[in-house]
């Protein structure tokens, strides 16, 4: 469940991050402002509060909408999707800074060269900018992933059966809290260790064909 939650969150989080990074790099002031406001809010809020805001906020909003429109609207988010929403918003806020730095790290000349070849902005982004961004962003994104993995533990507070919650249940049954929480810690450690290895591997793949700084 912990892994499922983290993996489900990742694509949404990356989408938020990319959107926010491009917004902050935009020529339009209102888009930049929007991107800045987004990162300020979600980097400033405790992750636990974000989760509670979304979890209870959705319930209250749906009730208000239902009474206002008289329609049977039921927006009650399950703890899982509230977790995905909250964690991807937080992940997006942090990762957008990483992507923005990577975007600025791509040489202007490369972009100009791609454009002068007649590539459309979209194609240039996909073929020239994105692969280089990936190389530069991976170490930062790897750190974001590790935080995400650990932040999934917060969802246990709104009663999703994640790893930490299961330890709690097991502890209630057996009255041996120390062992179960220790085992939970070891499992988290295992996941972060495996992730670190995978990230190192991915960095190697993303960095192929790069000869190092000139």
């Amino acid at each position, binding site marked *: 469940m912990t892994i499922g939650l983290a993996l489900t969150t990742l694509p949404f989080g990356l989408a938020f991050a990319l959107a926010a990074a491009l917004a902050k790099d935009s020529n339009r002031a209102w888009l930049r402002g929007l991107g800045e406001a987004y990162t*300020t*809010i979600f*980097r*400033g*809020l*405790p*992750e*636990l*509060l974000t989760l*509670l*805001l979304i979890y*209870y*906020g959705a319930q*209250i909003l749906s009730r208000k909408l239902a009474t206002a429109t008289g329609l049977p609207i039921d927006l009650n988010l399950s703890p899982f999707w509230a977790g995905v929403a909250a964690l991807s918003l937080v992940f997006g806020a942090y990762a957008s800074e990483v992507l923005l730095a990577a975007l600025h790290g791509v040489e202007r000349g490369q972009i100009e060269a791609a454009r002068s070849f007649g590539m459309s902005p979209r194609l240039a982004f996909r073929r020239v900018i994105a692969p280089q961004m990936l190389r530069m962003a991976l170490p930062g994104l790897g750190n974001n992933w*590790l935080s995400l993995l*650990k*932040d*999934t*533990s*917060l969802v*246990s*507070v709104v009663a999703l059966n994640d790893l*930490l919650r299961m*330890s*709690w249940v097991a*502890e209630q049954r057996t*009255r*041996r*809290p*120390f062992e179960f*929480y*220790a085992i*939970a*810690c070891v499992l*988290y*450690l295992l996941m*972060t*260790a495996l992730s670190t290895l995978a990230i190192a591997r991915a960095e190697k793949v993303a960095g192929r064909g790069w000869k190092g700084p000139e």
Partner: protein
Amino acid sequence: MINWDLFERFGPRMLEGFAITLELALGSVALALLISVPAALGRVFGSKPVSGALFAYTYLFRGTPLLAQLFLLYYGSAQFQPALSSAGLWWLFRDPFFCSLLAFTLNTAAYQTEIFAGAIRGVPVGQIEAARAAAMPPMLAARRIILPLAAGLALRPFGNELIMMVKASALASVVTVYDLLATAKLAFQRTYDFQAYLAAALVYIATVETIRRLWNALDKRLNRHRAVCQ
């Protein structure tokens, strides 16, 4: 729009909660300095076993969720109640505030150790060699040359760590510490008014922004001699 009644009833309590939040965050970061500075020196200059043991410590605490550490300490200590009682320490571990402070301190100390170790490695070797050449004993060199130079490098990540702890302190609410989040939760449960959470959110954002700006100003001032500083 704003429900003044709610804040008249719960405002003072939320302010007290905010004080607890600050105590937890600032307290743990300050206490952690006592661990992290020597640990960082050990991590860089210590012998293989010393540096390895310190790495194991930072890896353990950085690789697991803080909430799990907090549960391990708060609920886990109950299992050792007899032993702790006989050592006269049980009243401490029964107290959620103390457990939170201890868990936060150990956690942030692990992150700080790596921050400071990174900063110490960033001190130009020539500076350290010069200190040795001037016949400074290692401890004096650490105090006069290495640590002041490393402090400048570590300033920015240290500020980030402070911000992380302000946010992390909200976890204490889960083990019944009445911090800002817990008092907001209390107000919400009594009144079902969502403004309680929104108010807490605003206070957190304002706090984090204040620290961030303060730190930027501090960094600009203290690191103004560095030619290339961001």
